[in-house]
């Protein structure tokens, strides 16, 4: 794979590693947030409903009690008794003992004249025939008024009741302290802004509102409140100032009063706001964790894939090399054989010439001369060169042949120093520092010792050659190490010599490949080493950086 492919792949992995967890994460966060908001709203509304209901009951109970009080008074005393100021005074005091909400008590005749009065004002004799409450109580028999000013010019409301005797009908009326009533209604408090109040049909405040709105003022907010409805109604509406409120309303007192409980939405949803901050914080942390994990995992995956790919390409490279070498081996065996025959003839011809020449010299037919010397030298050269050719073909055949080997247990702790001993003098001469590192736990190996020696000596000689190329006679370093490597033994020869260029490193195991000057090497050494290690069931490898040195590694199966 190319570099760009890895980049594309890692982007793909990264994208999926981020997207896959982020989508459910975002879904979870938003769904739970939505549910939380929903349930918060419904909890708030249901608590508003509960408060409305409780209040309705309290208020109705209060009003009913007052009515019962009046009823009791009217039933217990006759008109004549109650019109006696002293008795009325006492009855009123008793009533006040029962409920401080009573401000005054009065008795009226049929025509609305205030016959008797007990309370802080001077109202006796006043005529109420035209008063709204009086008309209503005559009509209905019992009446609770809205809050009004009346003669006294103080907001109040009255509870009145008609008592019908045999001969006449009369009215008993009590005024209720709005302040006290206010307290009962206002008692409901939810959060910071929760409040409750009562409006009449026309939208006038019957009790004070905490957030503003005095008695008998017009409620300018939420006109929708006044729609007639059964039971409890809830809704959300903005007030004139633009603040959104949650409302719960209920009609009381024969649909004359509307009990309103409301709370600012922002206040009710305060918990939601902190939840929002939490969600944002979690989202950021979670997102960051996901992204970081994705980067980390992607990096790991791609690195691992790259490592595997490299391993694979190295392996296939090795296979290619091995295949090519096998081919070359077969070819060179045939080739060497074919060359040997003509070489043999050349050798025979040379011997014949030599024989003839020496015979002729013996017989005096040839005189010693400079030319003669040249001819003899030339004949010697022919012999030397055919010998050289013979050497090459022998080496080639050695590379190709399947020699019988004599494997035996080899202890590298003893074996390596022996091998190094063979080249140490040469290394000393070249000023090379030779190190050997053999780990103590190294297992025995089952190989032909002479073959392994041949391979190692070849590698050491190559290393010395490379070091001299690079450093001359000082500064060379050569390390031979052996260690156990997972059921195998790894022998490594590392030098700091001239190294091998990338284009050469592919060819170094091929026969006849050499970088040495003509005559210094046949290019068969490493190929023979390669085939020897191959036949031992080992792996022969090389790593090098040009100009920095090279490491040849031999992996051999450990014994047992």
């Amino acid at each position, binding site marked *: 794979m190319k570099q760009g492919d890895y980049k594309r792949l890692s982007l793909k992995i990264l994208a999926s590693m981020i997207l896959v967890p982020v989508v459910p994460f975002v879904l979870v966060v938003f769904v739970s947030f939505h549910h939380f908001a929903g349930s918060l709203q419904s909890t708030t509304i249901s608590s508003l409903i509960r408060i409305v209901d409780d209040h309705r009951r309290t208020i109705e109970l209060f009003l009913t009690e007052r009515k019962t009080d009046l009823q009791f008074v009217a039933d217990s005393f006759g008109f004549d008794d109650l019109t006696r100021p002293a008795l009325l005074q006492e009855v009123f005091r008793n009533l006040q003992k029962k409920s401080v909400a009573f401000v005054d008590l009065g008795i009226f005749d049929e025509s609305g004249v205030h016959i008797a009065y007990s309370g802080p004002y001077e109202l006796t004799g006043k005529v109420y025939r035209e008063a709204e409450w009086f008309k209503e109580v005559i009509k209905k028999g019992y009446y609770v008024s809205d809050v009004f000013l009346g003669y006294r010019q103080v907001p109040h409301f009255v509870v009145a009741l008609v008592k019908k005797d045999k001969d006449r009908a009369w009215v008993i009326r009590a005024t209720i302290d709005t302040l006290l009533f206010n307290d009962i209604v206002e008692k409901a408090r939810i959060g910071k802004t929760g409040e409750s109040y009562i409006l009449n049909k026309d939208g006038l405040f019957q009790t004070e509102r905490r957030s503003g709105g005095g008695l008998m003022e017009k409620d300018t907010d939420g006109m929708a409140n006044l729609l007639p409805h059964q039971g409890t109604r809830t809704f959300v509406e903005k007030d004139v100032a633009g603040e959104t409120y949650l409302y719960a309303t209920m009609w009381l007192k024969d649909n004359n009063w509307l009990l309103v409980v409301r709370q600012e939405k922002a206040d009710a949803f305060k918990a939601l706001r902190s939840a929002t901050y939490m969600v944002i914080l979690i989202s950021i942390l979670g997102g960051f964790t996901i992204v970081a994990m994705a980067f980390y995992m992607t990096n790991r995956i791609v690195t691992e894939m790259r490592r595997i790919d490299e391993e694979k390409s190295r392996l296939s490279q090795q296979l290619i090399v091995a295949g090519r070498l096998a081919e070359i081996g077969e070819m060179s065996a045939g080739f060497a*054989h074919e060359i040997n*025959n003509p070489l*043999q*003839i050349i050798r025979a011809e040379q*011997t014949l010439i030599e024989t003839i020449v020496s015979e002729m010299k013996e017989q005096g037919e040839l005189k010693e001369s400079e030319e003669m010397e040249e001819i003899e030298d030339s004949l010697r050269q022919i012999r030397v060169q055919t010998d050289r050719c013979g050497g090459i073909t022998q080496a080639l055949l050695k590379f190709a042949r399947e020699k019988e080997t004599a494997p035996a247990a080899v202890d590298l702790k003893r074996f390596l120093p022996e091998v190094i001993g063979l080249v140490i003098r040469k290394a000393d001469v070249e000023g090379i520092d030779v190190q050997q590192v053999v780990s103590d736990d190294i297992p025995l190996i089952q190989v032909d010792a002479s073959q392994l020696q041949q391979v190692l000596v070849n590698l050491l000689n190559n290393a010395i050659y490379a070091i001299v190329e690079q450093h001359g006679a000082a500064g060379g370093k050569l390390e031979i190490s052996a260690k156990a490597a997972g059921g195998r033994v790894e022998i490594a020869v590392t030098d700091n010599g001239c190294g091998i260029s990338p284009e050469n490193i592919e060819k170094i195991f091929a026969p006849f490949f050499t970088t040495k000057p003509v005559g210094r090497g046949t290019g068969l050494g490493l190929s023979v080493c390669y085939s020897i290690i191959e036949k031992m069931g080992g792996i022969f490898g090389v790593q090098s950086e040009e100009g920095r040195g090279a490491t040849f590694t031999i992996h051999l199966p450990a014994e047992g």
Partner: protein
Amino acid sequence: MREMKIMLVDDEERFLSTTEKVLSRKGYDALTAASGTEALEKLKRHTIHVVILDVKMPGMDGIATLKEIKKLFPLVEVIMLTGHATVDSAVDGLKSGAIDYVMKPCDIDDLLEKAEEAFEKRQRLEEKIRMAQARTYMKSPRDILKQTEES
């Protein structure tokens, strides 16, 4: 000591002729054969002590020829000449009765040296055979007479 008689067997004509010349110049009596069959043919007609036999030849190859020679002429010593460094084929030759092997390209002097060794060995062997026969003769002159009469 009798003169050593050598026969060279190789499919390379020029090698045969040149080597023959060299050998005769060195005072050896050498025969040549270009194939296994020709070699066997010549062995029947001539007394030959040492055969130098190329392993790889067309037709009847070296090993087959060797086996045939050893069957028909057990006393003839054979040196295998191999162009193949595969020691295996040389080993095959030795197992089939060759006395030695030489790798191509080889020096004719080396070849001669090995041939001489082989010849000496053969001489000793023949000597032993002669001695053994002589002992039989000496055992009883009558027997000898008997034998002579019979033959």
